């Protein structure tokens, strides 16, 4: 029996699809290119804002800005060291650059330029990284599973991991207004709109309690807050009452808000679209240990390994980021 024959009758295999697959659920409310539109709006209010990219304008929603402000957009070519060195130079002249590329190239390829040209002089350069964590099926060359781990060690750098279009729209003007460099884990294309359903506003440096719950407390960032909220609803059907704390600013971390929520006998779970090494889980863990809480924390995070290529839903399921896997993990923990 040939391989082809063997595959017949099996469930159809999902396709990797485009580089940037949307992680929005079918029928979910979304907003198109929220970063690009938010940057245009911020730039209308502040003439110092400029945009630049390294041959990835269309793939980081920077093209929206380039179209609105062609004179304030600088194409630096596929040269990430130049991208960030030049962004530093632009900031030296009093401008406020937003510089976009993929997270893997910002974090891995141009680190020295971000560190010494931007962070050490504490310049207001805003680094915009596309495809953070596991948001593409293209494999390790494009999956920035460890971007926050790389960046958390850089002094002066503020790290923001937004959940949805609401977070992005509200974060962009705050990033422009804050002194010093920032790194935004960009969600691009049709980005889910989730947090408008909650009594929530994005505040740089703050974690927010989105919902209360008596049995379990989720601390999450990025798109995993969306999954955390969905998992909380699913767990309610199992009579498990789950609180969700959204911590979109990874550094500086709002330990006070998070620790106040963790200092109970509820099951504590962190959820992040990032490696279990060096991201939200370890940020929370170090805050817990430093405060002497003696509290167990369960991570939902990507494994410390190079991830597979494939379709995003397949990979999120495989690595435990799907709602179904979160629910199963919580139920198992609760025994």
């Amino acid at each position, binding site marked *: 029996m040939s391989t082809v024959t063997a595959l017949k009758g099996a469930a159809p295999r999902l396709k990797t699809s485009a580089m940037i697959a949307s992680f929005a659920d079918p029928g979910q409310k979304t907003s198109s290119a929220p970063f690009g539109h938010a940057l245009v709006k911020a730039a209308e209010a502040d003439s110092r804002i400029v945009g630049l990219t390294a041959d990835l304008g269309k793939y980081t929603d920077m093209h929206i800005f380039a179209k609105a402000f062609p004179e304030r957009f600088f194409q630096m*070519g596929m*040269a990430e060291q*130049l991208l960030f*060195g*030049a962004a530093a*130079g632009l900031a*030296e002249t009093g401008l406020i650059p937003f510089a976009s590329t993929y997270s893997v190239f910002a974090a891995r390829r141009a680190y020295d*330029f971000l560190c010494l040209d931007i962070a*050490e002089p504490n310049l207001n350069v805003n680094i915009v990284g596309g495809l953070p964590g596991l948001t593409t099926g293209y494999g390790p060359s494009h999956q920035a599973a460890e971007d926050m781990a790389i960046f958390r060690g850089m002094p002066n750098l503020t790290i923001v991991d937004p959940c949805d279009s609401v977070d992005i729209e509200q974060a962009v003007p705050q990033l422009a207004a804050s002194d010093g460099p920032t790194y935004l884990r960009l969600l691009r294309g049709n980005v889910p709109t989730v947090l408008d359903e909650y009594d929530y506003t994005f505040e740089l440096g703050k974690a927010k309690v989105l919902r209360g719950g008596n049995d379990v407390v989720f601390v999450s960032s990025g798109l995993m807050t969306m999954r955390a909220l969905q998992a909380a609803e699913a767990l309610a059907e199992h009579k498990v009452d789950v609180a969700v704390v959204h911590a979109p600013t990874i550094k500086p971390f709002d330990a006070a808000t998070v620790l106040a929520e963790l200092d109970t006998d509820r099951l504590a779970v962190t959820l992040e679209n990032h490696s279990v090494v060096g991201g939200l889980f370890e940020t929370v863990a170090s805050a817990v240990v430093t405060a002497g809480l003696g509290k167990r924390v369960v991570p939902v995070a990507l494994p410390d390994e190079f991830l597979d290529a494939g379709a995003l839903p397949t990979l999120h399921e495989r690595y435990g980021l799907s709602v179904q896997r979160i629910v199963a993990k919580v139920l198992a923990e609760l025994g």
Partner: protein
Amino acid sequence: MTVAQEQNTAGRVGKTVTERIERVAAAANRIRHHALNMGEVQGQGYVGQALGAADMLAAVYADQLRYRANDPEWEGRDRFLLSTGHYAIGHYAALAEAGIIPVEELESYGLDDSRLPMSGMSTYTPGMEISGGSLGHGLSIAVGIALGLRHRAPSGEGSSARVYNFLSDGELDEGSTWEAAMGAHHHQLGNLTAMVDINALQADGKTDTVLRTEPVTEKWEAFGWYTQRVDGNDVGALLAAFDNAAAQAAAVGRPSVILCDTKVGRGVPLLEEREKAHFMRIEEHEWQLCREQLTAGSNGRAGR
């Protein structure tokens, strides 16, 4: 015209070529003496590089650059970016020569809590535009500064200032230098001038044994730059090259590069003849000898 006002324009303005050469040569001589004195504080250091690059630094600070000594952050200033952080010893000497830092402060070079660290950083020293040291960064930052100044000029907030980036031939090993070279040409940054100190020496030895960078002239020409190559220890040739670069400088136009062949330890025969090293060892008793040789040499040239 007071000295302070004069320094708002480049030193070259209103002078004959002979006057300019004498002025720059005298400044270079003082920069070399400063460097030897600073080197003695540390007992070692990048004295060889400072001596080799002194004429380039003097040409910039005594002849080309527009700045205000009492206001190093003046918006209209030309920018001088030191990419080679370890050349800070020479740059500090030039900043003292320019009146931006006091000459007496040079004694604190490399000491704890000094504003003059061994590797140049913008956060420590007035007049130091960037933090160099991680080689291959300066030209990228220069591209951004030139872009930014041009972008802001119409609003009156920028300026037509020139941007100079000092780099070394070792930095031609770095891919980022060539990213920036392409970027400057692509964006037609005609107010940007790179100065490359070609002393043919790197940390591990001679440049042509570490990573062959030649043909350097052809490389820059191929990248679209207005390229000149001169003896970087010949003040007259340096000034002529800077004048050529200035004549074709424009907000939109070709960036220019001046490739300067220099001699490590220049001006002190004892060091010129010593086996070349990135980090030159000078014995305690030799410093005075170096100063005497430097003085004798400059007197000899003045007498010719």
